């Protein structure tokens, strides 16, 4: 309750200070507004009342409909006064009150009179007010005057009409489009702003006519546009034209580049900036094109005006993301900006430097940043921390100074988001740079000694439990962890107990001591802490027979082998019954739904027609679709659905792709068909599959698609039987058969008679990769160690000449259809060797892990050493067969 009281005091202080609006009240002002109705208008008093009304509206007060109407009507009486000042205020209040269309009638005639007045100021303002409040029908009545106003010799009147045109174009485009001759004249005006407004309106009128815009730009870039604002506008239109031309496949010398470049020498800075920015944003800009723009921006960096420095550094920061080399010339100027008074500029400068800096400058940069960090807000700091993280990944050798920096700022004051950014960065560095592990873990330990954020403490404790036992001296972490049990809240205590248990289990020598510590925890005041302690004590107490070891290890370290999202959906769908929830029923496929959706949106730019039938992609979608078809329910649980494979070329009459659904002893091909011809309706759409090259498969049934209208996709299915649990492979050739019926495009009705036709589709293969489900593991090393070394199969392969290592890695990943782990799918540029970690589940629910080491020699010949571990030796051998035959 203290807060409102203090606030009241503040208000009181305000009132002591003089204000003409002190104690102002809506009711009283509305009373005062009656003065508008006086037969003898007092302009001064009326102006004051209007100002008060405007003040109230400005402070966020709102008038009821009745109040607004009343004020509006009395205000209209003021048109009889000849006082110019009062008239200005009347215009303002009418705009603010935004009267309804039936009220507008009252002022139309007065405003139209003003539109034709001899006083320029009346004409200009009456136009702006009238255009703001009228509708289409009234507009046609005054259209004549507006056209006149556009070419008025007074620039203020002309600008008023043009700007009003820009607003009206949104509501009454067909009327405004008729004005283009007058607007064209405006472009030739000697007044800078008239030129600007005319250009904006003319472009807006013609914006859908690409050729006209291109012509307009072409003629104006040759002539001289006087106004800097108009020049900026012209630069924007020019870049749009350049983009459009590139989209329509016109290649060769980039048109209009010379114009943009010449604008870099314009006398107005705003034009220079606009041009420089336009050049840096050109698609596929070359470094030769960039150079002049970077040069002017570099000059801006040392300008005395903060806005210029900000604009330049902001632009260069963007350029640094794509062309870091182009920006390095500015590094010296940029470094001096670190101490800029304006913190936004300093932060942008630092993050740019972190993007462009080279290995040797890192230490110097860190020293400068350290001074800077203490006096900026958290939001800036987070940006800097994120930039440092990527820098560390880029220059692993410099981890020492970067880690020191991060640990220093971790100790300073800061909010949750900021601390989390730092902790995330340290964790990333520990994961990516093995040398950094021990020092990084100690920094984190020190941090949790004095950490106010439960979330961060538990995250760090969990991380310690995984990484700590594998270090050279695990015992030194115990103290930090056990301190948590004494000093923290229940959530952190429980996390600490779990971490202790992990140490006890992994490090034999610590086990007795950990047991003692855990025993103390069973008297904790919190249930969860006690439960965990008791549980772990019994796990640790088991006297190390191999069997229990493995089980308890799984229990302690095994991550949940199903994605959490899938688990959540399954749990929500679970209805309480006699049958217990079975975790094995949760699908394991990693969902790629968002990506598929994005693609689908990108593919469908046409807003025509009805929205397509619900997109059926993603594992969940497929599972639902298949289980809705009675014939397929007997096949059991869906093991895997492949990504759609295109069976037709792009932009053919019929677009068909296929999804392969793998069941234990069946394979279902789902053909997604789309009819792209509006004049046709397809019926009885079926796919005839020839399986002569797939010996182990035999066709069971097929399900035709009854009707396939234009642009609304449908599915046909063909089902094959195969030996149960066997990864059978084969090749299938497909033919689409259907009955075509002509459709009258005007009525949309199909003719009764159709013609039978067929359409050759491309071949489809079922490959070994189809029997592999992408399943990630959270910690590859632990998972790898948990599989028996005996079952390991190693072999070496020559992959022949390739353009790059990346190509070979991708080919192997695609062939095996496995999930890449720990970011090993990305390969540093120009790398000559690489190790890729893969995981998956093979048909029969067999977990498989693969470690593939690639090397490239000087003649670009690539060799691969493939190490496979699987729960079943035969599967490990099968993987090698896949690679050998691929």
């Amino acid at each position, binding site marked *: 309750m203290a807060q409102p009281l203090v606030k009241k005091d503040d208000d009181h202080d305000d009132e002591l200070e*003089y204000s003409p609006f002190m104690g102002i009240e809506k009711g009283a002002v509305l009373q005062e507004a009656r003065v508008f109705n006086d037969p003898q208008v007092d*302009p001064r008093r009326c102006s004051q009342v209007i100002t008060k009304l405007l003040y109230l509206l400005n402070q966020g007060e709102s008038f009821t409909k009745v109040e607004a109407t009343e004020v509006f009507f009395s205000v209209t009486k003021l048109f009889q006064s000849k006082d110019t000042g009062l008239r200005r205020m009347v215009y303002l209040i009418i705009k603010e009150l935004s009267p309804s269309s039936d009220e507008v009638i009252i002022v139309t005639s007065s405003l139209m009179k003003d539109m034709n007045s001899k006083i320029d100021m009346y004409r200009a303002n009456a136009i702006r007010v009238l255009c703001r409040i009228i509708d289409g029908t009234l507009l046609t009545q005054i259209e004549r005057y507006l056209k006149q106003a556009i070419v008025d010799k007074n620039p203020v009147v002309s*600008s008023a009409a043009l700007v009003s045109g820009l607003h009206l174009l949104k509501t009454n485009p067909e009327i405004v489009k008729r004005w283009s001759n007058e607007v064209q004249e405006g472009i030739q005006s000697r007044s800078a702003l008239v030129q600007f407004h005319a250009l904006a309106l003319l472009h807006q009128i013609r914006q859908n006519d690409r050729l006209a815009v291109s012509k307009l730009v072409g003629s104006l870039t040759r002539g001289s546009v006087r106004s800097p604002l108009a020049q900026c506008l012209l630069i924007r239109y020019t870049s749009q034209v350049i983009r459009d031309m590139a989209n329509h496949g016109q290649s060769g010398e980039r048109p209009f580049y010379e114009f943009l470049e010449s604008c870099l020498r314009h006398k107005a800075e705003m034009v220079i900036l606009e041009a420089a920015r336009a050049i840096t944003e050109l698609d596929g800009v070359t470094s030769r094109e960039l150079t002049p723009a970077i040069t002017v921006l570099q000059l801006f960096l040392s300008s005395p005006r903060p806005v210029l420095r900000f604009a330049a550094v902001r632009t260069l920061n963007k350029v640094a993301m794509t062309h870091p080399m182009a920006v390095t010339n500015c590094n010296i100027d940029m470094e001096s900006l670190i101490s800029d008074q304006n913190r936004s500029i300093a932060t942008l400068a630092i993050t740019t430097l972190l993007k462009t800096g080279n290995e040797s400058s890192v230490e110097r940069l860190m020293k400068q940043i350290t001074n800077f960090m203490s006096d900026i807000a958290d939001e800036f700091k987070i940006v800097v921390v994120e930039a440092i993280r990527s820098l560390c990944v880029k220059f692993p050798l410099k981890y020492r100074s970067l880690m020191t920096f991060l640990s220093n700022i971790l100790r300073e004051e800061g909010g949750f988001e900021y601390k989390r950014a730092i902790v995330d960065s340290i964790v990333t560095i520990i994961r990516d740079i093995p040398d950094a592990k021990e020092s990084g873990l100690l920094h984190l330990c020190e941090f949790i000694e004095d950490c106010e954020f439960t979330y961060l403490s538990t995250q760090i404790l969990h991380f310690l439990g995984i990484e700590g036992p594998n270090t050279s001296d695990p015992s030194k972490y115990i103290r930090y962890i056990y301190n948590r049990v004494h000093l923290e809240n229940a959530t952190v205590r429980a996390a600490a107990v779990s971490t202790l248990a992990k140490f006890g289990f992994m490090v034999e020598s610590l086990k007795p001591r950990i047991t003692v510590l855990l025993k103390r925890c069973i008297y904790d005041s919190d249930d969860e802490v006690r439960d965990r302690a008791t549980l772990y004590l019994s796990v640790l107490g088991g006297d190390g027979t191999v069997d229990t070891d493995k089980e308890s290890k799984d229990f302690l370290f095994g991550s949940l082998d199903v994605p959490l999202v899938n688990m959540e959906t399954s749990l929500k769908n679970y209805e309480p019954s006699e049958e217990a929830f079975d975790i094995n029923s949760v699908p394991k496929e990693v969902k790629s739904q968002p990506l598929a959706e994005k693609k689908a949106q990108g593919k469908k730019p046409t807003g025509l027609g009805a929205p397509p039938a619900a997109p059926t992609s993603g594992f969940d979608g497929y599972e639902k679709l298949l289980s809705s078809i009675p014939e397929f329910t007997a096949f059991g649980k869906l093991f895997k659905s492949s990504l759609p494979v295109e069976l037709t070329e792009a932009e053919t009459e019929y677009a068909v792709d296929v999804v392969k659904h793998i069941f234990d002893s069946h394979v279902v091909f789902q053909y997604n068909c789309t009819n792209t011809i509006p004049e046709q309706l397809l019926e009885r759409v079926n796919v005839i599959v020839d399986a002569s090259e797939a010996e182990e498969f035999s066709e069971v049934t097929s399900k035709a698609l009854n009707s396939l209208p234009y642009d609304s996709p449908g599915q046909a299915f063909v089902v094959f039987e195969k030996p149960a649990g066997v990864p059978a492979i084969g090749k299938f050739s497909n033919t689409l058969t259907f009955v075509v019926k002509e459709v009258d495009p005007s009525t949309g009705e199909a003719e009764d008679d159709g013609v039978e036709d067929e359409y050759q589709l491309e071949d489809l293969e079922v490959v070994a990769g189809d029997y592999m489900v992408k399943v990630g593991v959270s910690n590859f090393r632990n998972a790898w160690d948990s599989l028996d070394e005996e079952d390991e199969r190693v072999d070496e392969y020559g992959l022949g000449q390739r353009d790059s290592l990346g190509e070979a890695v991708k080919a192997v990943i695609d062939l095996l259809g496995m999930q890449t782990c720990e970011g090993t799918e990305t390969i540093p540029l120009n790398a000559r060797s690489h190790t890729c970690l893969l995981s998956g589940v093979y048909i029969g629910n067999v977990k498989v892990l693969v470690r593939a080491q690639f090397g490239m020699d000087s003649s670009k010949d690539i060799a691969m050493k493939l190490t496979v571990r699987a729960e079943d030796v035969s599967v490990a051998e099968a993987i090698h067969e896949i690679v050998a035959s691929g």
Partner: protein
Amino acid sequence: MELPPKVKNILLLNSEGKRVAVKYYSDDWPTNSAKEAFEKSVFTKTQKTNARTEVEVTALENNIVVYKFVQDLHFFVTGGEEENELILASVLEGLFDAVTLLLRGNVDKREALDNLDLIFLCFDEIIDGGIVLETDANVIAGKAGINSADPNAPLSEQTISQALATAREHLTRSLMK
């Protein structure tokens, strides 16, 4: 696509971040409370900076805000994040100089409140529905300055009753102090 430079709002706040006069041209802040929240965050973010000699600039919630302070008045102009900062700065400078001209160099909160009608007219002459109407301070001040109700006009030009009213006002004002 809208290419012409757009101003999202003009704010004139006092030294506590309260409104003196504001005008919004964008639907980004649909309610009064959304507007007030934005004003508060702009004010807090820029409060400690020194924007008294040069126009300063910052980025906030995907917007670019340029600002300048004088006495106990804080002027802000906001545009989208893709906007050319220098165009926004020219709008701000136009506004700032026009207000200085209209208030005859005495730019502070009290003078601004006393001449709030001029400030509103000034806003109206600079931006129309988000589009830059004029940036030349002399032109803006000239257009906004026609005001017969100027309380500082010489007494001889006022009627007796007006003169009395002015006198009464001056008296109350001095008593309130």
